[in-house]
């Protein structure tokens, strides 16, 4: 292990900031990733997620702040001194070396005696043994991706970084590799940090997802929690779809806030709203909305609209409904009924939802 720092434990980023000239790529980021977890950094391009990853790898140094694994401060150390390996977006396989030599590259640099055997084992793990003698250019994208993974895994890094590793693959291969990656993570039990802009990919694979925007983490938590209760407008819109409307909070009714949104009174559970007075951005997920032809009994939490589009998806039917306020809501209805609603564009419908499913965030974008 010549030159490589011994470091075991959780990954900590403490107050990490990275600026390029005037541009703040990562802004005072503090992050704790437990050992052996599958952690996803999710965000649009330019949000600072790749820069964060590169700082963990040592390919960039933070302008301020610290990077630690366990109790070992790795700030300032070079990439080759860190027990961290990366699967690059473009794979970055060495084009002049065979697959076998690509995978054995790390163990050889660390002067491991059984480098060749370990390379074979790693290739077996990703089911690429039969291609060991080829050059990268002779492999397909999916195969190259597996080799890149094996080349990183073979070193048993304390943290494995994945930089949009599935970005270049087609949809079917992507699905396969998502399952495969998850399997391998469970099997080898390493800390995986997965950078992606694909919210579906992040949600299916990760234990914990951190949504990044403009160099900051907007929200962090298990995928289900982020989806169910987004805490910012950005998260609500970036992670899945949300039907939203802005309105003023008018008062409190027991456990609920009451707000005037889209010309109707809506209720939001107090602990599901980030703001308790003034303007609120009310939101509800498409599958939580029920479509009916007549106004249901009860007060509020319903709104009238005009059907714009109906798509039959098999398990569900998706409706796009134009609201009087000018926005368009989308709703998913499971096809459970024997006689489905026979709705056509132009029909007037009522949308309702259970107030327990609504959420409220500040209408301001961070």
């Amino acid at each position, binding site marked *: 292990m010549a*030159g490589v720092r011994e470091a075991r434990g959780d990954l900590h980023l403490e107050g990490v900031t990275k600026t390029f000239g005037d541009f703040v790529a990562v802004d005072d980021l503090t992050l704790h990733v437990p050992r052996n977890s599958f952690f996803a950094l999710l965000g649009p391009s330019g949000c600072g997620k790749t820069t964060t990853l590169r700082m963990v790898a040592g390919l960039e140094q933070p302008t301020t702040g610290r990077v630690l694994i366990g109790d070992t401060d790795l700030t300032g150390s070079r990439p080759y001194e860190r027990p961290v390996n990366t699967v690059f977006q473009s794979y970055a396989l060495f084009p*002049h070396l065979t697959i076998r030599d690509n995978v054995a590259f790390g163990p050889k640099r660390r002067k491991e005696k059984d480098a060749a055997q370990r390379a074979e084992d790693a290739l077996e793990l990703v089911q690429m043994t039969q291609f060991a003698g080829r050059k990268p250019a002779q492999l397909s994208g999916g195969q190259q991706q597996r080799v890149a993974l094996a080349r990183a895994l073979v070193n048993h890094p304390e943290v494995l970084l994945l930089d949009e590793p599935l970005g270049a693959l087609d949809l079917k291969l992507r699905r396969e590799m998502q399952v495969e990656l998850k399997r391998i993570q469970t099997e080898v039990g390493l800390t995986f940090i997965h950078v992606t802009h694909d919210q579906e990919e992040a949600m299916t694979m990760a234990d914990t997802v951190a949504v990044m925007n403009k160099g900051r983490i907007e929200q962090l938590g298990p995928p289900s929690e982020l989806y169910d209760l987004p805490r910012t407008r950005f998260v609500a819109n970036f992670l899945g779809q949300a039907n939203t409307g802005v309105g003023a909070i008018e008062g409190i009714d027991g456990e609920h806030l009451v707000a005037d949104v889209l010309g109707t009174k809506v209720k939001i559970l107090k602990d599901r709203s980030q703001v308790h007075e003034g303007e609120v951005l009310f939101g509800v997920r498409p599958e939580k909305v029920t479509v009916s032809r007549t106004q249901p009994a009860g007060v509020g939490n319903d709104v009238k609209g005009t059907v714009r589009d109906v798509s039959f998806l098999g398990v569900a039917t998706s409706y796009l409904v134009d609201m009087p306020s000018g926005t368009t809501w989308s709703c998913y209805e499971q096809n459970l009924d024997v006689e489905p609603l026979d709705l056509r564009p132009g029909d007037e419908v009522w949308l309702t939802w259970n107030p327990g499913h609504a959420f409220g965030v500040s209408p301001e974008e961070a």
Partner: protein
Amino acid sequence: MAAMTPTTPTSSTAASGPAQRPSAARRARLWLANHFAVIAAILVLLYLFLPVAYTFAFSFNDHGRSNIVWQGFTWEHWQDPCGVPGVCESLVTSLQVGVISTVVATVLGTLMALAMVRYRFRGRSASNLLIFVPMATPEIVMGAALLTIFVQGFSNIGISLGFGTIVFAHIMFCLSFVVVTVKARLQSLDPRIEEAAQDLYAGPLQTFWSVTFPLILPGIAGAAMLAFSLSFDDFIITNFVSGNESTFPKFVYVASRRGIPAEANVIGFSMFVIAVLLVVGAQVVSSMRASRYKS
């Protein structure tokens, strides 16, 4: 040029059923228009080789005092290319200068190219300019400038015109060409490949030798070939800085006042053949390698 082909009704005649064939003259014109670029290219290639053919032919000329007009066939010059005093000595000097200049210029130029492509630093655009300007300076100006400094400046520290000054000058003018050639290769190299090596525990030197160097080697080899041919063929700068030393081009130039001896044609043509064989050989080897990968 296909792009210059005048518009023709061929496609419409084809569409409109059994139309009559265009006339012979028209077909000839069409054919010429379609193949203009290829015909022109072949003519230009013939033109390029014309002086080489003359050089070759006149290496067999049984000339007397001057080798300008054809006088009769002889093998004599091929049997003893060194038969004329000075010609082989100048060739050896040229080869020595070429090899030394190529090695030094290639090493220094590769280092510079690495710095220019892989690093951001203060003075980068100034360095770029310093590399570019020698290529935009006429050789005669460089030769003149070197002559003045060698005669009026460096002579004070014991440097006099000769083999050394030729090598110094050749390294200088080869350097910029090496830098741009290697730079082009480096720029086409994905920097993430080097990052991957670092990420896989290779230090800066290990990264260079195990990844960067093998990948830019074709560029370095190309740069070295370019440097050698520039050095070997240089006359104008050499003429200024060589003093009494003679290189092959200088020998030929001096001899040209009286008529170049056919032995110089023998050597010049042989160098041409060797160079072509080397290039073709390299091509064949690389294409064989490429086909081996495929199988």
